């Protein structure tokens, strides 16, 4: 194997990982500040300027907190659970492209850790693994609130994964590929120089469905039933403390980032934006901005919407989302037939 290739890999993984982990930390801060803003309060602003060092303080706190493992817990699973939650969440980032191929140091470098022709499916496969972390946590804690959380999580995952996949099918029909790079590339250019050729404009229904499903998949408000604190104390992570708790936290935010990245790639043209063709390195910047948009949306929703009741959630998923998603597939297929 080519030694440069190896170096390139190591560097890419290093950079992405570093940025990603930091980003996660700061998304938490962003969320807290934004929520504060929405709720007309300050949020954490004492540690460092504007509270910018707050994530660091939180990290230190988590590290030094006492770790508690309940006596009747299933120890093995209890310890494994956070890992199971985190690993898929972090692994997905490997196949997400954040820009087109750029020419750096005399090498063609793809702006993704690795490129596979079915990256879409890989992401789906990996994210679907994420539920096991929650389920395991819920089961192993041997606590009825946790168990309920785990149960709800798995049911929710199965239910919304269908509409999620169906929403994606629409995009796949349009771009004719399961490769995220290819999907993003298909959205290059504009109509009449004004409207970008993003999928969001051709399939707004698909976008909406995707967004709703993805929020449900990441267990975020208004679909945060697995950890609904008013009913289940803290749901699946009721018994978790210190770093284990933090890992769940990280996993959740990593999932949010992945989801936002997917939304960006599938519907908002990925890294495309003005002048990207000329300056490929602008791609990641656009990409980050779009992701940020979705993250803010997430937080905004959390600040705005009340939580669903469990039966409402199920009814909504099966009786509204899936039929509409199916109809959307038909619609998109007809549209594709008409357009191409």
């Amino acid at each position, binding site marked *: 194997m080519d030694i440069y290739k190896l170096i390139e890999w190591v560097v890419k993984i290093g950079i992405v990982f570093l940025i990603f982990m930091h980003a996660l930390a700061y998304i938490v801060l962003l969320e807290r500040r934004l929520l504060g803003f929405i709720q007309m309060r300050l949020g954490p602003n004492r540690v460092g300027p504007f509270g910018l060092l707050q994530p660091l303080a939180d990290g230190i706190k988590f590290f030094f907190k006492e770790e508690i493992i309940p006596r009747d817990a299933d120890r093995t*699973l209890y310890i494994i659970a956070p890992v199971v939650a985190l690993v898929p969440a972090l692994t997905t980032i490997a196949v997400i492209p954040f820009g087109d191929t750029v020419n750096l140091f005399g090498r063609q470098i793809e702006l993704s850790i690795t490129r596979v022709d079915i990256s879409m499916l890989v992401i789906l496969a990996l994210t679907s*693994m994420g*539920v*096991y972390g929650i*389920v395991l946590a819920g089961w192993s804690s041997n606590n009825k609130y946790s168990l309920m959380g785990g149960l709800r999580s*798995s049911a929710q995952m199965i239910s919304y994964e269908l509409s999620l996949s169906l929403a994606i099918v629409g995009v796949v029909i349009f771009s004719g590929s399961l490769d995220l790079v290819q999907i993003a590339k298909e959205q290059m250019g504009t109509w009449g120089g004004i409207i970008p050729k993003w999928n969001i404009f051709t399939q707004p229904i698909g976008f909406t469905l995707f967004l709703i499903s993805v929020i449900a998949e990441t267990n975020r408000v208004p679909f945060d039933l697995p950890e609904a604190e008013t009913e289940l104390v803290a749901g699946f992570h009721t018994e978790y403390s210190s770093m284990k708790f933090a890992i769940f936290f990280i996993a959740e935010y990593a999932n949010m980032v992945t989801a936002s990245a997917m939304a960006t790639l599938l519907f908002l043209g990925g890294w495309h934006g003005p002048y990207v063709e000329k300056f490929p390195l602008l791609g990641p910047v656009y990409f980050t901005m779009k992701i940020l948009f979705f993250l803010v949306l997430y937080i905004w929703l959390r600040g705005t919407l009340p939580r669903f009741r469990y039966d409402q959630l199920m009814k909504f998923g099966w009786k509204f989302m899936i039929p509409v998603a199916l109809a959307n597939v038909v619609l998109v297929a007809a549209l594709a037939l008409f357009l191409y």
Partner: protein
Amino acid sequence: MMEQAFFLILATLAVGAALSVIIQRSPLYSAFSLIGVFACLAGTYIMLKAQFLGAIQMIVYAGAIMVLFVFVIMLLNIRKEETALDKYRYLWLLSIPFAATLIVEVLYTILKVTSDFTSLPEMAKRPEVGDSQSIGYGLYTGYLMPFELTSILILLAIVGSVILARREKD
């Protein structure tokens, strides 16, 4: 050599996990062992250049079917298998010759199949299969009928599950 080593690792893991499926007393542990098997198999699929099915394996089996299993295990809160195996020792005994026959028979056959098709000249010319395109093409041409029929299958599975799992209308 790399590949072979990799295969051996995957195979060992798969067999280990599979054994764990039947050795574990708790269904949940079995379920997670089974997920392990699925993951290893997905790995072997990818080694066989069947990436598409590898991904589908993870999505459908590990991501959907097993979630269902785990869901039901949790729903029914089955902590341990209620009976120890030794009560049914004769079944164990029954299974040993059964397994032995099966495995000897199949392994004997398989180990006789040493011919490697890839060494055949005309085989090398054939394109690789297993990418999403060839699968998609196959599904909508030769396999159109079975593909369409899966819709009936799924419809009836949905109807069936709903009937069985819903509560009696009082």
